[in-house]
C-alpha cells in the first residue's frame, strides 16, 4: 500500500475511502472533511474511526452521563473526578485510592483466555497511569446458561485468563460475581475492576504540557494485534494491500506488565514525567490525541520511530494497534537520561517518538512525510454526540402488569427442598471452583475476599487502614425497572461494604447494554443513568468514573440491562472488621430491615422461568439509616457477624453463613416460605452475643430500622421451623454445582 500523506490527500480530494467499513457514518465522514478542510489521509481516517467509535467516544452515552456531574453530591473525598483514566478518592492518613471498572466483553467471547487476561491488564494500567500502585483486582462475570455447551468453552477460558494474568502480576483477586442468564449466551460480560493506592502528592494526569517536552513510548513493542478491535465494525478489507489479515485478538504478557508497573512506579517516584497515558483501546491514536488534547499545545510524533514487533505494519496499523503493555509519557528533555536509565535497568524498551509543540495541531510523520495533521481535541474529545431516540419498550408494561406466580413452599419437606434448590442454583452456588483459580492472598494484605460480602485489603501495615470494595448488579430488577434497578444495585454494593464496618465513599460503574440504536435499549440505559445519578446524589456518594459497553447482543436479542456498580469504602482498622459469619454456637440471630413479598426478579422466580412483576422500590433513606446502624454497631464491636441479604434472600444468606464455619442455626419464621425466598432490599442478618440484645434494640430504634429476632446459632444443621437440613447435605448441594458443570 502506498503512503497516503497530507500532501497527497490535498491533491486527490476525490479518492474513495473505506469510511463505512471502518464504522463511520457518511455524516461523520463529512464532518471529518469539514474539520480538516480536505479529505483525511488514511492514517487520519484510521484515527478518527477508532476514536469516534462508541467504545472511545461515548457518543451515544455522553448526553446521559453528564448527570453524574450535574447531580454530583458535594464530597470532600473526591480528589480526581470523571474524565481522567480513573477517579481518585481521599481515604485519610495522606493516602489516596483510585479504582475503576471496565468491560472486556467482546474480545472475551472471541478468545476467552486472552480476552479476559488483557481485560485485567488494561484496567491495571489505567490505575497505574494515575500514579498508583495497583493492589487488588475484582471480576464481575456473566455467562449464558450454566449448562449451555458454549458456556463450557467460554467460562473456563475466561476464568483461567483472569487467573493467569492476575496471578502473574501478583495481584490478589478479592471478589466479583458469576451470574448466568440466557441473554448472555453469545455475549458474556467480563468486567474487570482494579484498585490502587498512592500518596496524595503522587497523582498523575494525562496531559502533555510544556513545549519542547518529549513524547516517550515505553513498554512492549508494537505488533499487529487487536487492530480495529476497538471499532465495532472492524473492517476485514482494511489495508488489503498489507500482508496477512490482522487478528482482532490481543495477546498479553503479564510478566512484561509486572516489569512495566515497577519501572513506572520508579519513574514516578523520581518525578520524571509531566503527564502519562497508557495505551489501551485505540492504542497510539488514543494516547497521542488524548495527551495532546489534555495539554496546552500541540504535539509532533515521528511514527517511524515506534519500535515494532512486526516490521511489515503500515502506519495506519501502528496507529490502531492495541498491542498490550505499552505506556506513553511526557518527559522534560533534561530528565530523559534518567528516564532511559530506569527503563534500561528494568529491561523495558523505550523510545522518544516526538515532542510537545506550542502549536495546536497533532502532527504525525512517517519517514519525514506528514501523514496526520489534525486538531487533537477533534479526535479525542470533540467527537460526534448523539441524542439517540429512546422509547419505553413494550415489554415493560406487559411484565409489570403481571404477577409472579411461583410455588411457595409450606411444609417442612417443601421448605427443605427449596433451600437446597437455591443452595445449588448456579447463580447462588459456591463459586470456589472459579475463585480458587485466583490468587486471593498474594501481597499478604487481603482481609476479605470471596465469599465475603466485599473484598477488603489493608493499605497501611502500621495503622491497619483498609479499603473495602463490592460490585453488584441485579439485571432481573433492571429488566423490570431500570431506574430502580440501578438504585438497588448501588444500595446493595454500599450495604455490602457497611456490613464489614467500612464507610462507603465513592462509586464506579460499568454499564453493559445492548445496541444504543435500539430505542428500547437506549431508554433502559437512560433510566439506569438517571437512577444511578439520583441514587448517588441521595446517598452522597460521588461517581468517580466508569465505563459504558454497548452492542452487547446476539442478533436482535440484547442482554438484560446490566449496570454493575462498584462502591469503595474505608475502614480505619481492618482488624476490627465484622466478619460475614459466626464461628461459635449460642449467638442470637437478628434480621435488620423489613421483608415484603418481593418475588419479582428474585432467584426463586428465575428458577421457575418467571421474569415478570414489579421490582422493589429502593428506599435509599432507609438504606442509609441501615448503613449508619451497621457502622455504629461496628464501632461498638457489637456484631459477631453481619451478612447482607440479596440474591436468594434469607435462604441463600443463611446457607452461606452456616457453611462458612460449619456452625448450624435454628431459625423460627412466621411464614417461612415467603420470608426465605423474598429478596426485599435493605436487609442484613446480624449475630450478637445474647447479653448485648439491648444495645441492638437501642441502635435499631435510634436508626428506625425494623429488628426481628429470627433464631440462634449452633448444632450441625440449618433448622427452619420443623425443617431440618444437615450441614453435610447443604454443603453437598452448595458445592457440587460448579465441579459438576465445569469438571
Amino acid at each position, binding site marked *: 500500500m502506498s503512503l497516503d500523506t497530507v500532501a497527497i490527500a490535498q491533491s486527490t480530494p476525490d479518492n474513495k475511502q473505506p469510511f463505512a467499513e471502518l464504522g463511520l457514518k457518511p455524516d461523520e465522514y463529512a464532518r471529518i472533511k469539514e474539520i480538516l478542510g480536505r479529505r483525511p489521509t488514511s492514517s487520519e481516517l484510521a484515527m478518527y474511526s477508532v476514536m469516534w467509535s462508541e467504545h472511545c467516544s461515548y457518543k451515544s452515552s455522553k448526553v446521559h452521563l453528564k448527570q453524574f456531574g450535574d447531580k454530583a453530591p458535594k464530597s470532600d473525598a473526591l480528589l480526581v473526578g470523571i474524565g481522567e483514566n480513573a477517579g481518585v478518592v481521599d481515604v485519610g492518613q495522606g493516602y489516596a485510592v483510585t479504582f475503576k471498572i471496565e468491560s472486556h466483553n467482546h474480545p472475551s467471547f472471541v478468545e476467552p483466555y486472552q480476552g479476559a487476561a488483557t481485560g485485567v491488564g488494561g484496567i491495571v494500567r489505567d490505575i497505574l497511569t494515575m500514579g498508583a500502585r495497583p493492589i487488588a483486582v475484582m471480576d464481575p462475570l456473566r455467562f449464558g446458561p450454566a449448562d449451555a455447551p458454549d458456556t463450557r468453552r467460554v467460562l473456563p477460558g475466561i476464568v483461567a485468563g483472569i487467573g493467569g494474568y492476575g496471578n502473574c502480576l501478583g495481584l490478589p483477586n478479592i471478589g466479583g460475581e458469576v451470574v448466568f442468564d440466557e441473554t448472555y449466551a453469545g455475549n458474556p460480560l467480563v468486567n474487570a475492576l482494579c484498585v490502587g493506592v498512592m500518596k496524595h502528592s503522587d497523582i498523575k494526569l494525562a496531559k502533555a504540557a510544556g513545549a519542547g517536552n518529549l513524547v516517550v513510548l515505553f513498554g512492549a513493542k508494537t505488533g499487529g494485534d487487536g487492530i480495529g478491535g476497538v471499532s465495532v465494525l472492524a473492517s476485514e478489507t482494511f489495508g488489503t494491500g498489507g500482508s*496477512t489479515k490482522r*487478528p482482532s485478538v490481543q*495477546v*498479553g504478557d503479564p*510478566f512484561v506488565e509486572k516489569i512495566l508497573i515497577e519501572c513506572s512506579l520508579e519513574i514516578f517516584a523520581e518525578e520524571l514525567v509531566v503527564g502519562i497515558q497508557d495505551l489501551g483501546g485505540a492504542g497510539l491514536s488514543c494516547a497521542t490525541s488524548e495527551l495532546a488534547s489534555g495539554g496546552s499545545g500541540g504535539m509532533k510524533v515521528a511514527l517511524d520511530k515506534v519500535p515494532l514487533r512486526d516490521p511489515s505494519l503500515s502506519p495506519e496499523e501502528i496507529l490502531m494497534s492495541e498491542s498490550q503493555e505499552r505506556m506513553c509519557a511526557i518527559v522534560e528533555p533534561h530528565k530523559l537520561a534518567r528516564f532511559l536509565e530506569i527503563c534500561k535497568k528494568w529491561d523495558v524498551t523505550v523510545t522518544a517518538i516526538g515532542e510537545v509543540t506550542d502549536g495546536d495541531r497533532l502532527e504525525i510523520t512517517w519517514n519525514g512525510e506528514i501523514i496526520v495533521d489534525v486538531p487533537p481535541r477533534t479526535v479525542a474529545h470533540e467527537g460526534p454526540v448523539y441524542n439517540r431516540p429512546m422509547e419505553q419498550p413494550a415489554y415493560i408494561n406487559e411484565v409489570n402488569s403481571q404477577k409472579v406466580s411461583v410455588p411457595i413452599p409450606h411444609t417442612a419437606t417443601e421448605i427443605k427442598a427449596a433451600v437446597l434448590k437455591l443452595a445449588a442454583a448456579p447463580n447462588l452456588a459456591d463459586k470456589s471452583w472459579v475463585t480458587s483459580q485466583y490468587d486471593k492472598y498474594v501481597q499478604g494484605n487481603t482481609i476479605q475476599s470471596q465469599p465475603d460480602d466485599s473484598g477488603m485489603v489493608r493499605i497501611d501495615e502500621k495503622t491497619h487502614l483498609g479499603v473495602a470494595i463490592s460490585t453488584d448488579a441485579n439485571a432481573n430488577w433492571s429488566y423490570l425497572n431500570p431506574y430502580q434497578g440501578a438504585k438497588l444495585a448501588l444500595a446493595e454494593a454500599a450495604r455490602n461494604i457497611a456490613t464489614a464496618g467500612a464507610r462507603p465513599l465513592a462509586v464506579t460503574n460499568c454499564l453493559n447494554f445492548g445496541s444504543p440504536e435500539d430505542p428500547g435499549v437506549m431508554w433502559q440505559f437512560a433510566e439506569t443513568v438517571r437512577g444511578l445519578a439520583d441514587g448517588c446524589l441521595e446517598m452522597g456518594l460521588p461517581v468517580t468514573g466508569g465505563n459504558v459497553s454497548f452492542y452487547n447482543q446476539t442478533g436482535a436479542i440484547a442482554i438484560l440491562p446490566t449496570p454493575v456498580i462498584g462502591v469503595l469504602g474505608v475502614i480505619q482498622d481492618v482488624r476490627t472488621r465484622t466478619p460475614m459469619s459466626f464461628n461459635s454456637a449460642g449467638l442470637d440471630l437478628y434480621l435488620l430491615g423489613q421483608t415484603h413479598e418481593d418475588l419479582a426478579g428474585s432467584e426463586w422466580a428465575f428458577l421457575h422461568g418467571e421474569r415478570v412483576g414489579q421490582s422493589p422500590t429502593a428506599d435509599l433513606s432507609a438504606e442509609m439509616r441501615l448503613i449508619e446502624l451497621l457502622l455504629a454497631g461496628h464501632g461498638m464491636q457489637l456484631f459477631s457477624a453481619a451478612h447482607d441479604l440479596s440474591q436468594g434472600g434469607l435462604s441463600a444468606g443463611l446457607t452461606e453463613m452456616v457453611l462458612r464455619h460449619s456452625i448450624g442455626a435454628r431459625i423460627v419464621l412466621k411464614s417461612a416460605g415467603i420470608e426465605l425466598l423474598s429478596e426485599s432490599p435493605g436487609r442484613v442478618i446480624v449475630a450478637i452475643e445474647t447479653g448485648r440484645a439491648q444495645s441492638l434494640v437501642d441502635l435499631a430504634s435510634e436508626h428506625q430500622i425494623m429488628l426481628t429476632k429470627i433464631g440462634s446459632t449452633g448444632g450441625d444443621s440449618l433448622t427452619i421451623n420443623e425443617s431440618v437440613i444437615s450441614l453435610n447435605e447443604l454443603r453437598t448441594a452448595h458445592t457440587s454445582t460448579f465441579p459438576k458443570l465445569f469438571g
Partner: protein
Amino acid sequence: MATIVVEVMLKPEILDPQGNAVASALPRLGFTFATSVRQGKRFEIEIDGEPTAAQLLEVEKAAEVLLSNPVIETYVVRVEK
C-alpha cells in the same frame, strides 16, 4: 505404521511471550546467533498403515477443533515416514 505430525504455531503477528523469553535467555547463556525465537508445539499421531485422504481430513478437523486455537494459531499437517 505411519506418523502424522501436526505442528502448531502462533500466527506471526501474535505476541509470543514464551518465544521472547527463550530469545532473551539465549544471549545470557552465550548463544548469540538468534535475532528472534518463536515457540510452537508438535503432535505425533500414530496410525496403522498408510494414512488415507479421509483420515488426513479427519486429522485436519481435529487440529482445527482441539489441537490448535484457530483464532491465534496456525497448524500444518503432514505425514512422516
